[in-house]
């Protein structure tokens, strides 16, 4: 049932004021017709000699730099951003409503369609939540395979983020390097479960497929192939003067604000909070591996960039340990053909590439969940956009949206 312009006939948002500096601001049509912008009060600043009125600009929903269908209404004074209002919901498919009319196993593929860039971790989160509800435990080999595939997916998601983020700021070349390397990961996914993006790799209770015959060899070949490539990205960007100038001190979010706004994942770690669900509340065999949690100092775009680059390297470390120590054994726990979890509710969350991805499942004893609530990290991180961008310039809005690493499929669900 898609979304469109809000109800009343007359377009509520005056697209753009006719001219930039209309000295007298003849008709305040921008003021009354934008009750949509109620909290962006359109006051005129104190009259200076050359008074300039606010300019309301619409960025999106079809804007090259908003990753998906996000519409940001910017209130500008010249080049400076006075306030933003995010209009979302263009990609709302009502996943939570559908869940109430599907059985537990039927709902599994829907989960991949939310954050389509990190589909494997969505699946992991959902399967583990239902396993907790059913009070069963996936066998060790399945948990190791899950860790390997989820970390590969984290790497792929960070690579896609780096490519598009650099492209938004103007550096064209990293995009092609990152997509070339991401291709290797997608090949492994395709050989394992037949799909590259929305993989539906896991089942409730373990994994569907045994690892294909050359799985360990491919992963190890990949582990030797990627580290010099990551150094290549670093070579291009980390010491690039213009990159530093465009990212240092841009979109700063303090530690207190980050916690208050519920921001999670690399964005929170870049602000100095050393918190990673894989360490704080280990799930799916993460307790067996040792890896560091990178944190940043002052929560600006450059710190988020270096935190994610370090996370890529840490993921490689985890995969290497997992492939070496993968145990033999069954890959599927005893799961009844028709799943009827006992009445009750459970909340389980994992560390998705974007942040804490949580599933709150209420079961009423039938085969279909009574209520599935997904706690999407991109949705909550996007809320911090207004806090980070106020007072910045238009070009910074693009950089900050890029560094938040949001995927609109997950924001809108």
């Amino acid at each position: 049932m898609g979304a469109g312009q809000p109800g009343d006939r007359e377009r509520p948002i005056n697209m753009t004021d006719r001219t930039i500096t209309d000295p007298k601001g003849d008709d305040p049509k921008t003021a009354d017709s934008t009750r949509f912008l109620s909290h962006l009060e359109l006051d005129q600043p104190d009259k200076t000699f050359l008074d300039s009125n606010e300019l309301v600009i619409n960025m999106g929903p079809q804007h090259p730099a908003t990753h998906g269908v996000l519409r940001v209404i910017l209130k500008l004074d010249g080049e400076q951003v006075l306030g933003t209002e995010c209009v979302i919901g263009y990609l709302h498919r009502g996943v939570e409503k559908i869940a109430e009319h599907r059985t537990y196993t039927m709902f599994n593929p829907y989960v991949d369609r939310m954050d389509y860039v990190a589909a494997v971790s969505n699946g992991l989160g959902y399967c583990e939540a239902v396993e907790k509800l059913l009070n069963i435990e996936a066998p060790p080999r399945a948990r190791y395979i899950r860790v390997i595939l989820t970390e590969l997916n984290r790497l792929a998601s960070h690579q896609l983020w780096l490519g598009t983020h650099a492209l938004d700021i103007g550096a064209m070349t990293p995009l092609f390097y990152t997509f070339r390397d991401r291709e290797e990961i997608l090949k492994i996914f395709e050989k394992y479960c037949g799909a590259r993006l929305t993989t539906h790799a896991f089942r409730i209770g373990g994994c569907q497929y045994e690892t294909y015959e050359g799985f360990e060899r491919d992963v190890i070949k990949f582990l030797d192939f990627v580290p010099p490539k990551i150094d290549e990205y670093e070579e291009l960007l980390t010491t690039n003067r213009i990159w530093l100038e465009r990212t240092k001190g841009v979109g700063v979010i303090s530690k207190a604000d980050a916690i208050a706004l519920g921001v999670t994942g690399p964005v929170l770690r870049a602000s100095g909070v050393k918190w990673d669900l894989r360490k704080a509340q280990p799930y799916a065999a993460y307790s067996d591996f040792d890896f560091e949690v990178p944190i940043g100092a002052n929560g600006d775009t450059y710190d988020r960039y270096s935190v994610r680059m370090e996370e890529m390297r840490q993921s490689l470390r985890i995969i290497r340990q997992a492939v070496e120590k993968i145990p033999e054994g069954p890959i599927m726990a005893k799961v009844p053909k028709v799943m009827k979890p006992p009445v009750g509710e459970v909340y389980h969350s994992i560390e998705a590439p974007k942040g804490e991805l949580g599933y709150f499942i209420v079961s009423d004893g039938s085969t279909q969940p009574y209520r599935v609530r997904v706690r999407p990290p991109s949705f909550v991180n996007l809320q911090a956009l207004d806090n980070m961008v106020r007072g910045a310039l238009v070009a910074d809005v693009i950089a900050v949206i890029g560094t938040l690493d949001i995927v609109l499929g997950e924001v809108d669900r």
Partner: protein
Amino acid sequence: MPEEPKSPTLPPSGEPKSTAGHAPAVPAKPAGPVPIPWDSAMVGKLKGQYGSGIREANTYLGQNYMVVEPSIVSELLQILRDREQFDYCVDVTAVHYPQREKQFDLIWILYSFPRNERIRVKTMIADGERVPSAVPIWATANWLEREVFDMFGIRFDGHPDLKRILLPDGWKGHPLRKDYGIIQQDQEWVQANLGIESGQ
């Protein structure tokens, strides 16, 4: 205290169940996990303070939650954040039980960084009953409450900008209510704005 792996009363999972697949008679299901009362120093203090306000505090499958009176909810949340250091509000959501007299279950999932602990605060409210907003306590509650309003129609007092977040503004009806059909749409809005006679 880190979340203990499994609540002790559960039957040890290693106990061989009948082989999966087409066993003739499904054996009597072992008693499912049952919520056990959860008593910790914090719960004791809160009970002392509010007495009947806190209906119950249990642990189910290793996850602590407490059911609270709607009247004391916002005060309790404030205490949980300030005194008990639950500084990160993970999620605000709701569940609709149409057959119950108090139709909605409103749930706050909180997490404390210093104590690495996660709890759920639940309260039961009737349709149309208003609950004070948690935005002054955690800024993240802004969009979360807007989504609960958008999907369930629960209003929050004191919310800076309570309006729909995912659905278009003029949409009538709250989809996640049980009485809202899976393929039902706001026909009138669809005709008015998309110019097609029905959304299906």
